[in-house]
Structure formats: structure tokens, C-alpha cells
């Protein structure tokens, strides 16, 4: 052909279509569910994988608040049949609160960086895990009318321990996932 350069028109669409947020979340929740079953604890503290996974999902997909609430409820619902939950309402409420907290932090407009490191995923995981854990034990306390000292000395330390480990996990896992999520680069 004579003219070698064809004019190409740019097509702008919502990259990744309408459902990428949905599929990536569903798959990460599946991982959260199996890790709850198979992953061993580190020195007595088990990370809460489900929270870590939906924090990653919410950081990746930046859903609306409504979608985030849905994600939280589904996360709680997935825990019920897969890990023989002793207290299903606790799971549902806790993950709902956790996801709301996470989405709130994700939607905050100011930067969260230390040097050149974006620490938003870690912050999300820390606060979501604390919020989710507190919700769970508080509901458990109310429903079972647990005494205050069980609550304060038996449960709260566990919540903060899990939050610490979740923070590290989420922060580390997020970046490779994000690189893959946003797509290949020009070579």
C-alpha cells in the first residue's frame, strides 16, 4: 500500500469495563476464605486474611461507598459457610464496618506517603482491622452479655495484634497486585 500511516482514532471507554471491580473482589475474597482455613498462625496470632484481601480489593478498585458496603457484607457472608462461623452476625457486621472504614480512607483526598512510599494500603488495613475487630467483640459482648474484663483483657489485645500483622501483610501484597491491575506497560 502507498500511504503507510493510517490515522487511528482513540476510543475512550471505562478501562476494564463495568465489572472488573466485581471480579477482582470476588477472587480476592475467595483467597481470603481459603487462607482463613489453611494458613497457620505466626507466634499465636493469625492474620485476618479476609480483611487484608478486601482492603487490597478496595484499594485497587476504589469503589463507591455503597459498593464497599456490599463488599463488606459479602465478605462476611462468605465466612459463614466456609469457616463454620460461631457467630455469623458478628462476621457480617464486622466486615461491613471494616469495609466502610477502608473505603473512607481510600476516598480521602490527601496523600499518605512516607518518603516515596504510599502507605495508604497499610493504613487502611490497620484501621479496618481495628474497626472490624472491635465491632465483632463488642457485638459478641452484648449478645453474650460478657463481663467487661473479658472484653478488655481477653479480646482487645488480640484485635490490636491482628491489626499490626494485617498492616504489614496488606502493605507488602498491595504493590505487585496494583502493578498487574493497572496493566502492562509499553515495551
Amino acid at each position, binding site marked *: 500500500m502507498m500511504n503507510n500511516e493510517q490515522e487511528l482514532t482513540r476510543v475512550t471507554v471505562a*478501562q476494564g469495563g463495568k465489572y472488573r471491580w466485581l471480579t477482582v473482589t470476588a477472587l480476592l475474597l475467595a483467597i481470603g476464605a481459603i487462607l482463613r482455613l489453611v494458613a497457620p498462625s505466626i507466634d499465636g496470632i493469625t492474620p485476618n486474611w479476609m480483611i487484608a484481601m478486601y482492603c487490597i480489593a478496595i484499594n485497587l478498585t476504589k469503589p463507591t461507598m455503597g459498593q464497599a458496603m456490599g463488599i463488606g457484607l459479602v465478605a462476611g457472608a462468605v465466612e459463614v459457610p466456609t469457616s463454620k462461623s460461631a457467630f455469623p452476625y458478628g462476621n457480617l457486621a464486622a466486615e461491613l464496618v471494616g469495609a466502610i472504614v477502608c473505603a473512607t480512607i481510600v476516598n480521602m483526598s490527601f496523600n499518605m506517603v512516607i518518603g516515596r512510599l504510599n502507605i495508604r494500603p497499610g493504613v487502611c488495613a490497620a484501621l479496618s482491622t481495628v474497626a472490624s475487630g472491635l465491632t465483632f467483640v463488642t457485638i459478641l459482648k452484648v449478645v453474650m452479655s460478657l463481663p467487661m474484663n473479658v472484653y478488655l483483657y481477653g479480646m482487645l489485645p488480640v484485635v490490636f495484634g491482628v491489626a499490626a500483622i494485617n498492616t504489614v501483610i496488606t502493605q507488602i501484597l498491595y504493590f505487585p497486585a496494583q502493578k498487574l491491575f493497572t496493566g*502492562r506497560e509499553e515495551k
Partner: protein
Amino acid sequence: MKAISFENFSYAYPKSGVVLEKLCFEVEQGSFTAIVGPSGAGKTTFCLAAAGVVPHYFGGRTGGTVVVQGIQTMDSTMGELAKDVALVLEDYESQLVAMTVEDEVAFGLENAGVDRKLIPQMVRETLQLVGLSGREQCEVGGLSGGQKQRLALAGALVTKPDILILDEPASALDPAGTEELYSLLGKLNEQGMTILVVEHDIAQVLPYIDQLVLLMEGRIAVAGQPEAALRKMSEESLFQEVIPPLQELRFLLEKHGCRFGAWRCEADAVRELSAVLQEAGEVSRSA
């Protein structure tokens, strides 16, 4: 009306160079086309373009047009095109989204709003077609690779599309499974379905296809009637490694003056070759 026609179609992903370049290409109604080409040639992108995924899903830059069943893909949506074209992607496992086999096949019907009373019958027929009858209640996660592949095919077939596109469908199948798959596709093709498949094992598809396309670096290097296309690939040494050895042998013998009838499968090849060898034997004896 052509089933699919590419007119000067070019495409680049948002973060890539031009992947398909000025393709001009047509697929007849009710034909069976096989596409071959080296890795990265753009075969998958080609399939995606025929289903409107490119550019609707990925965005990017395009030029020219793709017309599918009279509809220009740019002016339509993936959902609209889905009524005419079904696409089974290479990573079939990620396309299976329901918990049981039955729900998986029903998924497309439910999305299309098909009446509930009609669904079970259609699901049963489709599962029978792909050889998964009796597994309606099985969990999808528990199936073998080959069964999952057939289930993905069932999910695509159940809405009775006019055009079926498969990207490397045999990658998870053993030789027997591959043969079974292609004989099923051949049967569907006889019933009038237009089929387009990316496949490297040309010997497997040769008995069924009407058209063979070699894609290289985003351009159509060779396209046409299978024997002619293979001959051209052999003569010009284009992506020669996929030419079936028996066909290579034939081209070699033809250069030495042998004449063969058309052949598509091994049985025919054996018949043709032995006839020629016998002839050669007689010639040498009489000489």
C-alpha cells in the same frame, strides 16, 4: 451478507503499539476458519475484535471497521453482539463463574432473560451436546481441565449464537479430547454455525476447515483455501513449523512430479501416498 468482515482494520491497545494492522478479511456464513500464527502475532486480539471486545472493553486506538452479521462493532455494544457471537477465551477456567455445572450453563440464558420454564431443557440439551450429561449437579471446581473446557463451550453454545469463536481451545485437552472437540465443532459447523478457531495443530482441524489464515505481526500473511494456504506457507517458508509433516511430504513429492488428490485427514493421506508409491513401483519395474 458475510458473517464477519474486517475492512482495513487496525488496532492498538492503550499501552501498546499497533497490534493489528490494516486487516482485510472475510468470513463466509457457515464456514469454518482456522487461524495460526506465532506467539504475539495478534491472534487473540483478532478474536476479541470479532466479538467487539476490542475496542469496547479495552479502549485504545482503532482504524477501519469490523462488521459482524451486518452490524458494525463500533456502533454496537458487547452485550448486543453477544446475541450473535460467542467467544470462548483461552483461559477458560476464569470464565466459569457459577457453583454448579447446571448454573454455569444457565448463566447466559438468565442474563438474556429467557423464560425460566425453558431453561432446564436448553441446559440439558447443551450439556448432552458437549458430553457432560448427568453432571448437572457437579461442582464446577471439582471438574477436570478437559471437562471445564467443555463446560465453557457449553456456556457459549447454549444461547445458540450464529458465530462461535474459540481461542486455543485444545490447550488443556489430551489428543483424544482434542479430536472429540473438533469433531463436535465440525458437527456444529455442518448444522450451519460459523466457526473461527485459533489452533496450532493444523492436522487436527484440517478435516473440517474451509479457510486457513496465517497471522504474523498483526498482518495477514496468508489466507485462503487450506491446501493453497499451506502450499504458500511451505513455498515461502512462513511459520513452517506448524505445517503437518504429511503435508510437507506431499509438497516435496509434488516438486518431483507426483500428483495427488486432495487430502485432509491421515487416512486419506495414507491412501493417496500408497497409490502414488505403488505407481512409482510399477514404473520402476517396467523400466
